[in-house]
């Protein structure tokens, strides 16, 4: 005996779909609208790009380059980020800790 919820009649599928989508219909429509707008924009924009990706066959990884960049040119954002991370963690711990009477 099949449970009614697992019936695969056409009517049952439509009902389930309807129940699932009805409260979300606005969200879906808006998200699709946004997506279509963005996609149209993306397709009709000419993006700047190099013709050929630079390839270093000896060392295909770019870790070294990133590491160099972090500790030379972008060291100040890095330091600031570390402080932000630290303080946000401290804040999160403080908030999550509660009143301390537990």
């Amino acid at each position, binding site marked *: 005996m099949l449970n009614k919820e697992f019936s695969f009649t056409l009517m049952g599928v439509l009902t389930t779909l309807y129940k699932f989508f009805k409260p979300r219909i606005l969200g879906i429509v808006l998200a699709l609208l*946004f997506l279509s707008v963005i996609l149209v924009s993306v397709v009709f924009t000419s993006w700047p790009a190099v013709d050929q990706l630079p390839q270093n066959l000896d060392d295909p990884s770019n870790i070294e380059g990133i590491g160099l960049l972090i500790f030379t040119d972008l060291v100040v954002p890095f330091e600031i980020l570390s402080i932000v991370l630290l303080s946000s963690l401290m804040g999160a711990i403080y908030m999550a800790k509660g009143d301390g009477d537990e």
Partner: protein
Amino acid sequence: MAVENYAFLIPLLPALAFVLTFFFGKKLPNGGAIIPIAAIATSFVISLLITLNLLANPEEVVSQSFSWFAMLNIGILVDPLAAVMLTMVTFVSLLIHIYSLGYMSHDKAQSRYFAETALFTASMLGLILSDNILQLFICWELVGVCSFLLIGFWFQKPSAATAAKKAFLTTRIGDVMFLSGIVLLFTDLFKIYNGAIPDGVYILRFDVIFSHIPEIAAMNATIFGMEVSHITIITLLFFGGAVGKSGQFPLHVWLPDAMEGPTTVSALIHAATMVTAGVYLVARTFPMFIAAPSSLLVVAYLGAFTAIFAATMGIVMNDIKRVLAYSTISQLGYMMLGLGIGATIGAEAVGISLFHLINHAFFKALLFLCAGSVIHAVGTQDMRQMGGVAKVMPITAATMIIAALALGGFGIPGTIIGTSGFFSKDAIIESAYVFGASSGMWIPYVLSIVAALLTSLYIFRLIFMTFFGKARTDYGGHESPATMTIPLSILALFALFFGGLATERFNTFVSDTFMNDFVHVNIAELAEIGGYHLGHHGHEPLIILWLPLIVAAAGLLIAALVYGMKVVNMDRLVSRNNPIYKLLYNRYYQNELFTNFFSVKVVYEGLSYAGRAIDTGFDWLVGWLSDLVLETGESLRQFQTGAVQNYATAVITGVSLLIILIKVVMEVL
């Protein structure tokens, strides 16, 4: 380092004194009175030096002006007319400030008093020095404001506050007319230049105005089917301003009430200086008046009528200051009459009128200061409670009697013996005779003679009631301090001797005020435009020369008989219910007419009906608007759900639609 270059300091020093006294006066002894006194003394010295220079070279007037904006300028002009006014104003103002040291010594708001009087002096001097009509108007309004402030100096008293309001509103009627005149004049001059005004020509400056009088006179406007020259309209509007400021009939009603201010203020503003601004305006624009058909006749008739009209009321007043106020109105009428007579004697009229103005400033300021001294000692303004004050206040009494003699016009014709008022007032009356003889219009002359009789009568009534006889109440006064009596004595000297010593010199000096480097006006030509026939002083019959003195003496005699020796009991002769007495005592019911009819019935009720109608309309409109806003808000606030997600949804929708919109617009374009 010629002193002329410092003429601009004359109004600026008192203005500076105003600022200093206003802000720092409270911390200084006597309310900082020393600052305005020093400033005005300096102004006086500068004015005096400039006047002496001008006396030597009447052609070389002081004229400095610089561009203000567009075709208007700010500048100063010291010609003979301005010079004598400057000297008089600074001198009288200086003496009154010194006197105020004693008079205001017990007042807590001394520093405010001195600041305001300094401001007044500055604006009055600015008015006199103006070389264009617009600047004159600005200062004209400034003195009006100062007058308002000072009448309402004791604003704790409701009557003073009311009087200040009344003065301000009444003069406003005249000021609006004056301003309309300026606007019309400006339009006409603009038309004359076809709107293309060359650089360096300031069209409201007096020399420019005067040089275009014939063109303005040629313009005509049709009013009620009559062809009226523009110059007539302009001058009559200017005269309207002068009527308001100088308290001529029918706008004189504010001046008696203005006596609510301190007596020194009455002396300075409402007797000696500000109220003469109207006369000064007419004198200043005299070339325009003489080119305007019938304007000068209006001036003459109205002046003569005011002279007698105010004098009749002066006879019955019991308040010592009100008598003097009506006297001031009456004398201002004489000055206007003197100017109006220019229809016959040309620019000489300016000299005669200004001479009376200066003399009047001396003796009227003196009268007011004496009255102030008496009030200070006796503690009342009601003459019925005084009597015999001469015994306790000999200096005040002596100086006041001198002033009364000057006001009455006592002197011997044909000699230089006589009080100052004698020379100036009799000159006006004689000119009125010449005017009558040449034009056949005798009414001004008759009115002025009768007014002379009344003048003498009311001023000696005041003297007898105040200083002689027995004390009617126990007031226990004492002579005033030296700061008060010394200015009195100086003014008394001037009231006594100035006329005899200066008449001829003064009249020729001031009469030539339109003939110099700055303006050169041919009065005779302009008089032809205006349709006046200028004549000269002929040899008047001897009786004409003596008549003013005779009537003055008659007035003195009547006053002495009735109020001095009580030969006739006035109370029995004229009952309090006598219609004429009541008419005079109630000031011709003009006040009632103005307040009860115009103000209450016409203005107040009319406005309230109109206001109620507008009110209802606006009520409905405002109610409707507020309902609209309320309902819109009610429905719109549903959107504020408090859930961030809804807001995010709205933002996303908005962004999407915005991008689409921009795309569409870009495509269309």
